[in-house]
């Protein structure tokens, strides 16, 4: 045998170094995506059943028209976003028309999917959306506020930083176990004591599937069952009180974490920039708007992406905080799909749902990246 050349030897060493990690990630992280797609085409309940093609997807959407309607709606909205950006007025008007067409296609198809397809899936999608909207913007705002106070050198800075990140570091199952009691429906629970101190009534908190707006203003849903109005009025009622508790738990976990990352970003803004602005007579608000926010935009973008994708992945705390009595009022897609798989043992259908989840996550990542390219300032 001829002796190997040095380059070949190096390559051989490299492959043997990469192999163990590669095999594990391939088998448990990459191959499953393709396998899941295959499973989703079968009537698979614990044991692999018959091949049923797209029937699982049909069951989810209710009909082929609904699936196409949703795809067309999303496509039209994406087209509208593209047409409306930085082009002449005629394009903008065309974009507006596209947005209207896309929006109404989406509204119609989702309502008809709620009637003929999997209404529970749509409810958990709604939970996911409320969850994102309730957590990410507030965490960004409060995190940035705390980060501004962590700026510069002062006594106790590291102690504050460490304390702020504690909620993020402790196991979610354990901290959720605490919040599950803080927001218990018992009159002596922490949340009820606080409300009582302000003269309020005893509330059911995590056990309250009623929506926030219906509790606050006695709002009710309207429209004939199965109609467009009936579906969209479930949106108009807002998140359930139970979900609001989950959102508050997430603020507790993530605000300090966001603050730490923002503070790190603030630290990399050169002080000369502020010095120059001050000489030009800029006040603190102008500096925040014109210097801090634009220069922080990569961090904000990173945290937004992480936060939104995170709502599609969150599981541990939600599994502990959920109360079956609420009928899934706090189950986002991740938890809903888990129960279809684990409790109903509908492997094929759950795999189809997870494929739709994957499409959603990849689509959102792509959309945010497109948006990021345009609006994020990298130096």
């Amino acid at each position: 045998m001829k002796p190997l050349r040095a380059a070949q030897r190096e390559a051989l060493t490299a492959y043997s170094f990469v192999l163990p990690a590669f095999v594990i990630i391939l088998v448990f992280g990459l191959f499953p995506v393709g396998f899941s797609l295959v499973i989703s085409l079968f009537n698979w309940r614990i044991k692999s059943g018959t091949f049923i093609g797209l029937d699982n997807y049909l069951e989810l959407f209710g009909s082929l028209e609904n699936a196409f309607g949703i795809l067309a709606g999303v496509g039209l909205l994406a087209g509208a976003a593209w047409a409306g950006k930085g082009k002449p007025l005629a394009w903008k008007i065309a974009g507006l028309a596209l947005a209207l067409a896309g929006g109404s296609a989406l509204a119609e198809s989702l309502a008809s999917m709620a009637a003929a397809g999997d209404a529970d899936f749509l409810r958990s999608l709604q939970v996911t959306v409320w969850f994102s909207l309730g957590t990410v913007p507030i965490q960004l705002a409060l995190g940035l506020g705390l980060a501004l106070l962590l700026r510069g050198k002062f006594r106790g800075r590291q102690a504050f930083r460490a304390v702020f990140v504690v909620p993020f570091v402790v196991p979610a199952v354990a901290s959720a176990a605490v919040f599950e009691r803080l927001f218990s429906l018992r009159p002596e629970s922490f949340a009820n004591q606080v409300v009582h101190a302000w003269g309020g009534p005893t509330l059911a908190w995590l056990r309250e599937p009623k929506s926030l707006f219906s509790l606050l203003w006695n709002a009710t849903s309207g429209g004939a069952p199965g109609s467009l109005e009936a579906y969209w009025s479930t949106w108009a009622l807002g998140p359930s009180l139970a979900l609001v508790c989950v959102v508050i738990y997430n603020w507790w976990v993530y605000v300090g974490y966001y603050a730490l990352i923002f503070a790190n970003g603030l630290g990399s803004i050169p002080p000369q920039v502020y010095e120059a602005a001050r000489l030009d007579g800029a006040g603190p608000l102008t500096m925040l708007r014109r210097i801090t926010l634009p220069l922080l935009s990569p961090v904000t973008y990173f945290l937004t992406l992480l936060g939104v994708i995170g709502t599609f992945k969150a599981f541990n705390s939600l599994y502990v905080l959920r109360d079956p009595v609420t009928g899934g009022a706090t189950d986002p897609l991740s938890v809903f799909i888990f129960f279809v798989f684990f409790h109903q043992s509908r492997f094929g259908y759950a795999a189809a749902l997870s494929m739709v989840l994957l499409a959603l996550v990849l689509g959102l990542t792509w959309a945010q990246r497109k948006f990021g390219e345009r609006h994020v300032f990298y130096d």
Partner: protein
Amino acid sequence: MTKADRTKRITRYAVLALGAFVALLPLVYLAANSLKTAPETVTRISPNPFAPEFWPESPQWSNFVSVWEGDQFGAYFLHSLIIGGLTLAGVLTTSVLAAYAFAKLRFPGKEGLFSLLLVSLMVPETVTLIPDFLVVKALGWVDQLAAVTVPFMAGAFSLFLLRQFFRQLPQDLMDMAQIDGCSHLGIVVRIVVPLSAAPLSTVAFLDLTSSWNALQWPLVVLQSPDWRPLSVGLARLVSGSGADLPLRMAGAAIAIVPILVVFLIAQKQITESIASYGLKT
């Protein structure tokens, strides 16, 4: 110091202190209630941690004994330690080797292979859950230790983090070692690892906590209590209706304390890594 500066300083400390209070309050509640008697959680209550009613009349350490022995938390704790230790040993070995190859060696297909591995970071656990369960079942690993360790013995995020660091290590050092007849494995063991204490401990903390906190996967692949980890034991305790508040809180405290101890020891470095990498599993 001017008056404006003083007001600013006081406001800063007041708001930061309020933030710290909110961050710690649930944990203080946990500590107080894990030591109460069951009746005390109804009769002796206050939302204010500075009031004596917030705390137990006399601490009931027996709650911890009851959870540790009666509810098997002692066994679960041991399981979690073993699972965490094995996973950590595995993931550090595979990640260090692969990260070194991706950072310092030349081989065909390097960039493509690396991007392929990074793709796995985009896939949510919900997607891999069902096929992974079927794979583990086919391997006969259900209820086995291998099911909760082997799949986590490699991670794209750890690999990525280590590669970033290894790339900055001076090439001269490795070239010299090679001239002296050192193999690549020798370089990794004698040069790279000793120089990488900071990133290695970051990766170790990250992988250890994610193993300690894992819930969804062990729920699915461990149906018997043989290897049941603490996270699953605690989730079961909480979602069942049997355990009263002090026992639940004692159980949660047992899950939190080890992580908190590690955090306190390496507090500075962990906050630093979180601030700069955003560490998220």
